[in-house]
């Protein structure tokens, strides 16, 4: 349990002359729910993009499951077992809910291009299998009845669920959630935390999430790292974070700016 599944080691990220992340290190223990919090522009999403291989860090490295994955291409990172959601939901808009989830199975379908074109037995077998699996995930999220609807026609809360379901379909060990509760009402937020707890157990997941909503973080996370202007200003239990003077100052600063 205490073994780190993900380790961010001395990561610095500069864009031009601007330092977005400054010598950041933290460890996400396997099986935990870890929070990355901080005011706007603190560099949280940048860290996600570094972990998923969208950015190459200026300095430092990312270790996943004991392996250095710094600079691995985003699609290869998924194959290693890291899946993500986006801050602004990004579903495939021309596709149904079911098809969105099926995309997540892409790498787990072994038939070749020619087998698909010739409709050989492996095509039928695997298409059938992943459909059953995808429906299973949708049922877990309670949205199986929308399977054939256009994904973007769903309510905001349900679109969030589709996005997480889609990420789960890639069979990740680590799930990165970028502000999962953003834009949700309290009831939806509560429902979401229940689902996250449930899938975490059912799929044996480790979760790293970015969030603003401190109540949500408190309810979800075992441990948090607080960022401000790309620097770590706190690491520890969420309950302690709220009373930490540095964290309070950073957030107050954020409020006064806003």
């Amino acid at each position, binding site marked *: 349990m205490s073994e780190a599944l993900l380790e961010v080691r001395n990561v610095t990220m500069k864009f031009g002359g601007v330092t977005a992340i400054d010598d950041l290190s933290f460890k996400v223990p396997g099986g935990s729910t870890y929070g990355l919090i901080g005011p706007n522009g603190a560099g949280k*999403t940048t860290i996600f993009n570094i972990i998923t291989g969208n950015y190459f860090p200026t300095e430092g490295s990312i270790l996943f499951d004991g392996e250095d994955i710094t600079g691995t291409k985003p699609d290869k990172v998924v194959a290693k077992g890291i899946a993500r959601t986006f801050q602004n939901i990004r579903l495939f808009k021309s596709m149904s809910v079911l098809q969105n989830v099926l995309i997540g199975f892409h790498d787990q379908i072994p038939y070749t291009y020619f087998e698909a074109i010739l409709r050989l037995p492996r095509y039928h077998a695997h298409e059938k299998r992943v459909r059953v699996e995808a429906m299973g995930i949708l049922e877990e999220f309670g949205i199986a009845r929308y399977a054939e609807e256009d994904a973007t026609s769903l309510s905001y809360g349900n679109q969030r669920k589709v996005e997480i379901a889609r990420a789960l379909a890639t069979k990740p060990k680590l799930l990165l959630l970028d502000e999962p509760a953003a834009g949700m009402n309290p009831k939806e937020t509560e429902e979401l935390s229940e689902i996250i707890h449930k899938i975490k157990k059912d799929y044996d997941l480790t979760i790293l999430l970015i969030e603003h909503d401190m109540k949500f973080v408190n309810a979800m996370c075992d441990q948090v790292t607080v960022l401000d202007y790309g620097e770590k200003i706190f690491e520890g239990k969420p309950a302690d974070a709220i009373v930490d003077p540095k964290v309070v100052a950073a957030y107050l600063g954020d409020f006064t700016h806003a």
Partner: protein
Amino acid sequence: MDFATFLQQLVNGASLGSMYALIAIGYTMVYGVLRLINFAHGDIMMVGAFLTYMATAAGLPFSLAVLIGILGSVIVGVLTDKIAYKPLRNAPKISLLITAIGISFFLENLFNVIFGGVPKAFSAPDYLTKVLHLGEIYLPVTVIIIPVVTVLILGGVLWVLYRTKYGMAIRALAFDIPTVKLMGVDADRIISIVFALGSALAAVGGVFYAVSYPSIDPLMGVIVGLKAFAAAVLGGIGSVTGAVIGGFILGFTEIFVVALFPELGGYKDAFAFFFLILVLLFRPTGIMGEDLERSRF
């Protein structure tokens, strides 16, 4: 190659490069603000040349005719944006590209219907068709006038971009349209200015082309446009200075490769394409360009 020939080719290259540079600026600026390959841009150059041709044919003095050509191109360029591109700002990128191709094809065929596909002889005034004899070198005045005028124009463009508030708005727009809008800048007006400026330069390029060759046809903008775009990519798409450098490199290459290896003459029009491929393979950002790989999160 003796020194005289070398000098001769050097001015020829500068003259050709000037034309590419003038047209490449329009591509690079529109790409900079809209991330759109404006396929119709090469045809705007053709429009400029044809309007100038019509005006001289109607008996107007050459300078006035050129002015009409420039103004006409500016109107066509800005209208193209207003009618065909602006309504699609929030549409999928492919819609915009298809529309751009549609405009390009429309202009080519419209002028083909009006003027016919046969090339028209372009008559420039005498002071532009003179040939100077300097020892062994024969220099048509145009090959000197064109680079000089181009350099003056470029100075003007750079001054607008870096020393005026419009220029600043254009450069800001190239970074981020929504934010610039939030800051109270009328983005659509700035985009119109970009189209106007690019079209005016293309028209000047078109007139230079017409005077140098001296014939024009409705499809003249296609190959030149393609080459100018390649020049813009070579210099680094989005960068005005890069477009100019790219244009001159392409101009010099075409002239000198053909001078040194005459057997490659038939492939002259293909050099730009190979440049484009090589740049994309080895240095997609071009010589001066921004980072194309920059992710959009």
